[in-house]
């Protein structure tokens, strides 16, 4: 494999082989892109799994990550993957404080409600504010950044693999593994898991559950930041990009099961595959519809999702 910037020349092929290649190509594309979607959904599912709230501002936070990465790369010319060093902590603190200032008071007020619905409203408020402040400050133009990896690809036989998407895939796997290891083996990770089971019980065990929530929210948002950096080599940056990812993430998280890490990744890949394979046969607006239909079907037939816990709805 070597990085190239142009496709191989045409060869005469059997039409079946061409179709097979097209399908395999779209499977690969779908899987790579889907894994990145899965990473985006991972932040959301972590927050839900621990704090039991749905963060409607998740897409907007991802958008903030994208803009942060965009400006960093545009102003300093640094590699977008190096930008992670700045963007990730930045978003971690963003998330930490968002949880502490805006969401915690509601959890305290509604201490005996497992999933207070006011949180949906408040996070939507944050979403409105973030999206429109960005619109006001940076304008509505679609921005593109030229990074060292944009537009490059590897070739594997007749198949073309987009380099930035591949790197994104690798980063997704690394992040997911690191997260699982963190939750399972570190003290803080175990505290997070304990707090996720029962708010009040955990506090009786000496865990400051609100601090744990702040950290969990911070981690979820930091993951959104990772996705932001990973996306800018091949995705447009504009103020409402968050909305697209928000809705996609919700769908993925329901598909995979709220609170399940493998669920988020697999759900993401499923959506990615529907989009990329569907794109071969129909317009992208129809693939959008199919994703919604699949979402609604899963919601009605098995609301817990593929890997979620079965609960009494």
């Amino acid at each position, binding site marked *: 494999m070597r990085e190239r910037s142009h496709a191989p020349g045409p060869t005469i092929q059997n039409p079946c082989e061409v179709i097979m290649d097209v399908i395999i190509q779209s499977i690969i594309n779908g899987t790579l892109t889907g894994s990145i979607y899965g990473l985006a959904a991972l932040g959301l599912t972590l927050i*839900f799994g621990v704090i039991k*709230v*749905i963060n409607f501002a998740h897409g907007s936070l991802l958008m903030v990550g994208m803009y942060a990465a965009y400006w960093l790369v545009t102003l300093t010319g640094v590699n977008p993957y190096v930008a992670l060093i700045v963007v990730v902590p930045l978003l971690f603190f963003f998330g930490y404080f968002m949880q502490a200032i*805006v969401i915690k*008071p*509601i959890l305290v*007020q509604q201490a005996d409600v497992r*999933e207070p*619905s*006011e949180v*949906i*409203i*408040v996070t*939507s*408020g*944050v*979403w*409105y*504010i973030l*999206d*429109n*402040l960005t*619109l*006001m400050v940076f304008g*509505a133009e679609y921005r593109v950044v030229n990074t060292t990896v944009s537009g490059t690809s590897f070739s594997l036989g007749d198949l073309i693999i987009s380099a930035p998407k591949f790197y994104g895939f690798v980063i997704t796997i690394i992040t997911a593994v690191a997260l699982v290891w963190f939750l399972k083996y570190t003290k803080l990770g175990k505290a997070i898991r304990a707090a996720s089971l029962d708010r009040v019980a955990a506090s009786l065990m000496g865990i400051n559950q609100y601090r744990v929530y702040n950290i969990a929210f911070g981690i979820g948002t930091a993951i959104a930041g990772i996705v932001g950096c990973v996306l800018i080599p091949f995705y447009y940056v504009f*103020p409402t990009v968050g*909305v697209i990812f928000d*809705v996609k993430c*919700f*769908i993925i998280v*329901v598909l995979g099961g709220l609170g399940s890490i493998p669920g988020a990744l697999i759900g993401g890949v499923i959506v990615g595959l529907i989009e990329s394979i569907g794109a071969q046969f129909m*317009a992208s*607006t*129809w693939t*959008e*519809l199919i994703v*919604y*239909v699949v*979402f*609604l079907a899963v*919601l*009605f037939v098995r*609301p817990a999702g593929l890997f979620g816990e079965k609960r009494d*709805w």
Partner: protein
Amino acid sequence: MTRENLDKLLKIILIVGVFTLPVWMRSPTYLQILILLFFYAYLTTAWNLVGGFAGVLPLGHSAYVGIGAYTSTVLFMAFGLSPWIGMFVGGIVSAIVGTIIGIPTLKLRGAYFALATMAFGEGVRVLVENTDKIGPLLVNGPRGICIPLHNSFAQFQFMSKVPYYYIILIMLCIVLFVTWYISKIRIGYYLAGGGEEPEAAQALGVNVAKYKVIAMALSCFLTGLAGTFYAQLMLYFYPKQILGLDFSFEIAFIALIGGRGTIAGPVIGALLLRPVSDFSRIYLSDIAPGLHLVIYGLILILVMLYMPRGLVDPLSRGYNWVLDKFSGKTEVEGVKA
């Protein structure tokens, strides 16, 4: 004068004032603003039947506005069916769709229900955007539908804004009455109980899911009617606007800020928030596009944190204070002045 009499007098002044407004306010621009204000108050009150009384958070109600608008308009354009009749057809179609969606989704909890309604709303929008024609019915995809000018009562079009004003005002009064009436009879109690403690309500004989679906059907029917009104008012609508997520969210949030579950809440929310949105959009959108939404977002957060029951609470306390202050408090416990 006594407190009760002052209260009654103020309410009478309000009602008379609102009903005679077009007599002394002639500006069509301001009338239009008021018409849209009542339109939103109507929508939020209808939304409240599900979002307030049934205790769940529907975030896809724009779909029913759209279904109402598209149904009556499409039937008018293809068959010449009067929009007055089309309005009720649209309402019924909305109710049927709402029931079909409601039966599986109303079993879901909080966040899942919200997501499902969002997904369904977006699904309807995408479906309409991708549809040009259904047989003889012209849907026109993302471009939306433009209703040709006819200017006759039979075709539900008027030259002046005044008839529209009275129509939406009457519709608003009807919807408020329906909400009030429901809260006083059994279905209101069952919805309230089922929304707060479904298990307890079930043990008391309430089939919670069934009542939620009834509330949904009614809400969707009423919402569909407003869709036709909007179509006839503006004579143009398109999917991203009338079926959009922004619209759904706006309806929900106005009701929430005003006070979900109360009767006056959604109306108050509309009265306070729509002017904010309109004026900031008119005067500020050149300098700062989207500022009105930033303001919306801030208000949303502040109200949820400090007044989770909505603005109805502090406002009704303020109103009571005014009553006390100006009535001289002549009512003493057990003794009438």
